[in-house]
């Protein structure tokens, strides 16, 4: 029987089937579900690490001890882990080591569109690119085999479209399995696990040879093992493609010859040369960077079309591939169906903080300090503080950057107060080191930790502050205020996230604090956690509403316009959607005429 699995779920299944024992990850869209699903299989240890580098280092340690391991992260997470990644390629691995990365073409939930295959190339290890869930599962097993055979880390690279699409795989009921620990540590294994300069110099030529061996293997046994797929059709055109791009090619160009690569780095050059000799012209269709195309061009294989017609920027879609194929002369330009938008104006619909969200009162307050303060934001749900109605984030770069940016702005002589805003999970990810630096250098910044007791944006994952592990065991929860005090912060205050005036007054004090950073922990559980307490919902007294619109400045999806008109202003009065309201009361606290109260 076939069932629908997402790419992430299928990769987790394949990794479990192939015998991965230990796995570590930091959540990040679109990679998160790989670890969530893997952790549910029997006989495995799976953990959330505090960040991606920690996850990778966990995997390296377990692997050096002899475990088959997996680390998972989103594309920008690989940046965090890159230091260790470069070197574990040099040391090599004694047991299977698979790094699952999920790229985000079109940056649907990310700060950029970087192509992780560049990392495989940069760090000189192979990259496998599945094209559907079934391949995700199968390639996870192949990745383990390749890793053990060549004693190399292997990247299994997904994209948002693969990770979050569901396609059919054969159903599988996992059998019981007991966790096997590690053997006694073997100090005599062939690989050097201590990357000293002498070791690096000795290993480098061996790594170069490993790449040549991998390319040769890929051309021969790789084919036999089903890593690649060749379909000879019309020989006037041969398309070399990989990953999700293959799906668009096979639908739009059903007659051409296709060489679909399951490993995009290093490419099976010999096989590609053979393919090229059998077709009139070679076309490369791949998403994001021209990784395959560059390898072919460098090897002297003529590429008729590639990135000249299939763009580097943005996700490939059927429409984009169609346009490229037409530009390359592979498809006739058929009259496009009428796809002009309707002749009516359609308002934008931005994402918003959820009703009851504990970040709301903070952003409502901070937008009032636009003349006095700048806000360095961070990565999480609170990135939405940059959107209307708050538009209260002035700089945003990467995970954990808020504190360092606010510090730099302040120490360089910024005229405005500098506020850094960071979530609890992000604080543990990469907020502690910059806070230490701010204390050390006496940066006068206000650090606001929006502590919602969960990693919210990626779908509610536990973290060091919650004290519950990925596999549901009791860990130890770390107190953020205690961490700040231990780092030498003199001003550490906690405040109820839904107390609008309380947040405001403590924020003022924090901004006035001198001689080092002030830390304010805004505490309130995410509405999706069990700790969030719903209260009786709010309602608007239409007799009192004067349509001033203050309540809309809290940006709550539950606050809507009613059909009742206030005669003085001619505007529609406010109403509260009883289905959406959680009773958090932030709107009632900002209403200047006390028109909002608890519903009876």
């Amino acid at each position, binding site marked *: 029987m*076939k*069932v*629908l699995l997402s790419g992430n779920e299928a990769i987790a299944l394949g990794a479990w089937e192939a015998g991965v024992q230990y796995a570590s990850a930091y959540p990040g*869209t*679109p990679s998160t579900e790989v670890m969530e699903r893997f952790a549910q299989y029997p006989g495995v240890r799976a953990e959330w690490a505090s960040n991606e580098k920690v996850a990778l280092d966990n995997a390296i340690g377990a692997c050096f001890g002899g475990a088959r391991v997996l680390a998972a992260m989103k594309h920008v997470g690989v940046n965090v882990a890159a230091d260790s990644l470069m070197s574990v390629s040099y040391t090599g691995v004694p047991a299977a080591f698979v790094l699952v990365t999920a790229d985000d073409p079109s940056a*649907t*939930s990310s700060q950029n569109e970087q192509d992780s295959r560049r990392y495989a190339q940069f760090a000189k290890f192979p990259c496998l690119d599945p094209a*559907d869930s079934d391949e995700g599962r199968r390639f996870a097993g192949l990745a383990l085999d390749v890793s053990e055979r060549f004693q190399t880390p292997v990247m299994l690279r997904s994209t*948002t*479209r693969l990770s*979050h*699409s*569901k*396609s*059919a795989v054969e159903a599988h009921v996992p059998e019981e399995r007991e966790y096997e620990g590690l053997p006694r540590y073997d100090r005599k294994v062939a690989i050097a696990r201590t990357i000293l300069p002498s070791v690096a110099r000795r290993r480098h030529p061996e790594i170069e040879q490993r790449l040549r061996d991998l390319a040769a293997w890929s051309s021969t046994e790789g084919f036999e093992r089903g890593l690649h797929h060749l379909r000879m059709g019309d020989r006037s055109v041969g398309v070399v493609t990989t990953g*999700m791009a293959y*799906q*668009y090619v*096979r*639908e739009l160009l059903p007659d051409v010859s296709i060489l679909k690569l399951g490993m995009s780095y290093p490419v099976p050059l010999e096989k590609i040369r053979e393919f090229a000799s059998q077709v009139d012209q070679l076309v490369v269709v791949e998403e994001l960077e021209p990784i395959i195309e560059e390898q072919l061009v460098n090897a002297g294989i003529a590429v008729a079309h590639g990135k000249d017609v299939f763009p580097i920027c943005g996700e490939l*879609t*059927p*429409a984009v591939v*169609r346009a490229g194929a037409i530009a390359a002369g592979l498809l006739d330009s058929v009259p*496009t*169906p*009428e*796809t*002009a*938008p*309707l*002749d*009516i*104006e*359609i*308002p*934008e*619909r*931005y*994402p*918003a*903080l*959820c009703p009851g969200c504990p970040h709301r009162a903070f952003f409502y307050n901070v937008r009032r300090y636009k003349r006095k303060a700048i806000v360095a934001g961070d990565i999480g*749900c609170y*990135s*939405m503080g940059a959107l*209307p*109605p708050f538009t209260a984030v002035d700089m945003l770069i990467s995970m954990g950057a808020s504190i360092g940016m606010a510090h730099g702005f302040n120490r360089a002589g910024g005229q405005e107060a500098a506020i850094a805003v960071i979530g609890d999970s992000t604080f543990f990810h990469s907020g502690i080191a910059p806070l230490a630096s701010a204390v050390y250098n006496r940066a006068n910044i206000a650090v606001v930790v929006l502590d919602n007791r969960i990693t919210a*944006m*990626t*779908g509610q994952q536990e973290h060091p502050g919650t004290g519950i592990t990925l596999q549901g065991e009791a860990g130890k929860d770390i107190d953020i205020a205690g961490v700040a005090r231990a780092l030498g912060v003199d001003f550490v205050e906690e405040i109820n996230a839904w107390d609008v005036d309380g947040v405001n007054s403590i924020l003022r004090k924090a901004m006035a604090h001198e001689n080092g950073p002030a830390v304010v922990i805004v505490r309130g559980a995410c509405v999706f956690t069990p700790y969030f307490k719903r209260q009786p919902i709010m309602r608007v007294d239409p007799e009192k509403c004067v349509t001033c*619109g203050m309540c*809309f400045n809290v*940006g709550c*999806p539950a*606050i*809507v*316009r009613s059909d009742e008109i206030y005669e003085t202003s001619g*505007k529609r009065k406010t109403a509260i959607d009883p*289905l959406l309201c959680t009773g958090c009361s932030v709107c009632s606290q900002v209403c200047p005429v006390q028109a909002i109260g608890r519903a009876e």
Partner: protein
Amino acid sequence: MTKIERVNILVVGVGGQGIITASDIAAQVGLDLGLDAKKSEVHGFAQRGGVVESHIRWAPSVGSPTCEKGYVDVLVAFELLEAARWVDWLKPEGVVLVNHQRLDPMSVNLGKAAYPDEDELLAALRERAKRVVVVDALPLAEQAGNQRTMNTVMLAALSSMLDTDPEVWRKAILRRVPQKYADVNEVAFQLGRQVAAS
């Protein structure tokens, strides 16, 4: 009844309307009918009250998990404005199933944009699509006994617009919903079937 061989369905609406569950079920129905099926949507940032789009494709063998703009057979919109936003994905002879629900975006609440006139919106949809079926899914779900069965009402209406065995849909829905809500979903399914048939 001609057996359906391939269909491109685009389900759109607002985060929190139950679109992802509905799409999972619609894709599963494709498999249950003996076809290949894929579905695709974007999670994360886009979900928090923003626009949600989910693509479902059935065919003997499905390549792309997303539909191509201009080639959608059925647009299922859980909200009026989203029907208007996405109708340009429809092929000329495509059909629209739209839930008669209005959810004002923040830009409208803030007075920075206007929600289009509903009658004009529906007229524009009718001009573009071969057929537009309007369902009042929320009141029907309430009638069934639980507002959360709104997506079941929509799926039922969709099932009656495609040449497929309703039993396959009914079973796929009941397999997916929590056991204790089986009865209300059963009623919601029957109500949804009636609406689109009329």
